[in-house]
């Protein structure tokens, strides 16, 4: 029998560093928290798409769509399952629990949080819990980001019940759905109180958050919104550096133009994150300066800012050397070389749709998935309102179409956030008879 080898302090440090390296280097689609387990290192089998319902299209409700994406499968490229939540609440983003057994998904309009079991049968997710009292208990509206920490889920919101502005906060839930604490975004001292994405670097005990806008803006028709000068001033211009352990804000960084998705480099040698700003069309780098203070610096331009291409989702490669950026208005997918993160260089672009938003990639970067919808009131109209998931193969030079699912033709709705899934894990002891669960008194 193999006995555990006792580790010296130096060996312990090396082991812990290799753990964080292992986690960071092995991540797949890069929206995942560093605490996510069972990372898919090979071929993914499934893509889950959190889909916004569209009146008159199918049941009109928000739904979780499951697509088979394994080329060896007989149903490759096909929708194999849907689970509707029975209402339309502006389905937007979702996130795995740390054990990857559940997907938490949110609605920006009704503020519902839906919990789907994706472990019992990964190809047939089940809705197992609905949390509908987030606004009542916290005053926060629009659960946007679902970020796993051990045994818990941090939910970042976009707005509030008082005035529908972007002043908001985060809520920590246990994986069982119990509300543990709520944390307001800092206001004052440079803080605007706005929130959007969350990204943690455990090695540095740093959590970054970004800033978008409130419900009065994101539920307003985009054409009307851009003409409202006062409303257009109500977008976030900050990122916050937090102590991830204590969940206390340490510093507010000025990042004008609504910084959105945060991506820490997954390369174990790196210690920086990037973000794209939607309104100013820039890439910003967040890193420590020579004195160890966290700073934000503008490092690249995306497209022609004067045309407001509206950068939206970004996806960093597992080695931290490349960054995909989608621009919504012109439907382009851009690739930036991040070999020198202080000087990113665009090396590729392709029009991949009339409107494009989310982008996810396989761990090895060879497969790229793109969806279309941003927000129901911001998506384009008429023939430009394509709704799809498009899968591409990437050989480092060209995106080659692999398959497409037309979400309008399939009567599904507006395709939004994606997460990759696998069929290759089965719960141990799933079929064993069990003793009744007891809780300690």
């Amino acid at each position, binding site marked *: 029998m193999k006995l555990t080898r006792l580790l010296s302090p130096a060996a312990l440090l090396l082991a812990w560093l*290799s753990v964080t390296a292992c986690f960071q280097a092995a991540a797949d689609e890069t929206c995942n928290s560093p*605490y996510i387990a069972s990372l898919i290192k090979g071929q993914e089998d499934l893509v889950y798409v959190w889909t916004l319902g569209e009146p008159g299209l199918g049941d009109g409700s928000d739904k979780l769509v499951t697509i088979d994406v394994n080329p060896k499968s007989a149903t490759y490229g096909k929708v194999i399952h849907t689970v509707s939540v029975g209402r339309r609440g502006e389905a937007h983003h979702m996130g795995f629990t740390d054990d990857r057994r559940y997907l938490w998904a949110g609605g920006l309009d009704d503020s519902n949080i839906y919990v789907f079991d994706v472990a019992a049968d990964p190809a047939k997710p089940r809705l197992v819990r609905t949390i509908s009292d987030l606004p009542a208990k916290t005053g926060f509206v629009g659960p946007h980001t679902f970020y796993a920490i051990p045994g818990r889920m941090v939910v970042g919101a976009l707005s509030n019940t008082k005035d529908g502005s972007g002043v908001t906060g985060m809520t920590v839930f246990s994986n069982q759905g119990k509300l543990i604490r709520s944390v307001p975004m800092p206001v004052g001292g440079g803080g605007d109180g706005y929130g959007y994405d969350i990204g943690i670097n455990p090695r540095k005990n740093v959590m970054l958050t970004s800033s978008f806008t409130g419900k009065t803006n994101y539920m307003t028709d985009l054409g009307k919104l851009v003409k409202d000068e006062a409303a257009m001033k109500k977008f976030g211009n900050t990122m916050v550096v937090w102590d991830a352990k204590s969940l206390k804000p340490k510093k507010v960084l000025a990042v004008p133009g609504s910084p959105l998705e945060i991506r820490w480099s997954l390369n174990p040698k790196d210690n920086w994150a990037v973000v794209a700003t939607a309104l100013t069309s820039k890439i910003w780098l967040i890193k420590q300066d020579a004195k160890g203070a966290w700073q934000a610096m503008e490092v690249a331009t995306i497209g022609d800012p004067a045309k407001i291409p509206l950068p939206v989702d970004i996806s960093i490669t597992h080695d931290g050397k490349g960054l995909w950026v989608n621009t919504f208005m012109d439907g382009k997918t851009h690739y930036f070389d991040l070999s020198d993160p202080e000087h990113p260089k665009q090396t590729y672009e392709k029009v991949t749709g009339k409107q494009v938003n989310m982008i996810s990639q396989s761990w090895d970067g060879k497969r790229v998935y793109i969806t279309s919808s941003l927000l129901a009131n911001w998506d384009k109209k008429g023939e430009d309102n394509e709704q799809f998931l498009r899968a591409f193969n990437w050989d480092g030079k060209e995106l080659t179409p692999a398959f497409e699912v037309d979400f309008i033709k399939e009567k599904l709705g507006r395709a939004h956030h994606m997460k990759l899934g696998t069929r290759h894990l089965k719960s*141990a002891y799933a079929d064993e008879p*069990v003793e009744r669960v007891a809780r*300690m008194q």
Partner: protein
Amino acid sequence: MLAAAAGAHDVLPPLEFEPPAPGSYRLDHIMPAPDGTVLDVRNRRARLSALTAGRITLLSFVYTHCSDETGCPLAYGVMDALRGRLVHDPAAAARVQFISLSFDPQRDTPEAMKLYGGDRAAARQGPRWHFLTTPSPRELKPLLDGFGQDLSLVLDEEGRPTGNLSHVLKVFLIDPKSEVREIYSTSYLQPRMVLNDIQTLLLEEGSAAH
């Protein structure tokens, strides 16, 4: 009290950041710790709650056949490093204990856990360290589910179990009232941070006593 012992007996690897001071932050009440039937190294049955009541407990799910140095052996290493620090503070050591609980009862018998624990299972100095298993999966599963410790069989292309297990390494910090107050996975299993959390709970106990 632990800080006083630190200087001469610092066996913990350094951090790349300045952690928040013990007692300066809140450890949330995450969930009540689940209870269930366990076996110790002498094959004696006990309720887990009876073992954890009244002490600060660091509990890790392990299995002795784990060959991943960044998995169960890492948890063992962290707990042993903390034990090395606490040995020099008998007052704190008396209020803290460790539990290594197997999630492979078919292979990890009480005898196997005794061998796995080695002299740590019988140590008279420092915090008590229990090496536990369960009579069968029937008693184990509610503990796994209750703690939220996932455990999966890795399947091959044909859907057959390969014999390997996949799990998120999780270590649970349980307070004397049997509330889970922190959960560590590999990315956050830093000995100094765990020690700070133990110290935070000790300070909390001290405040409650007054």
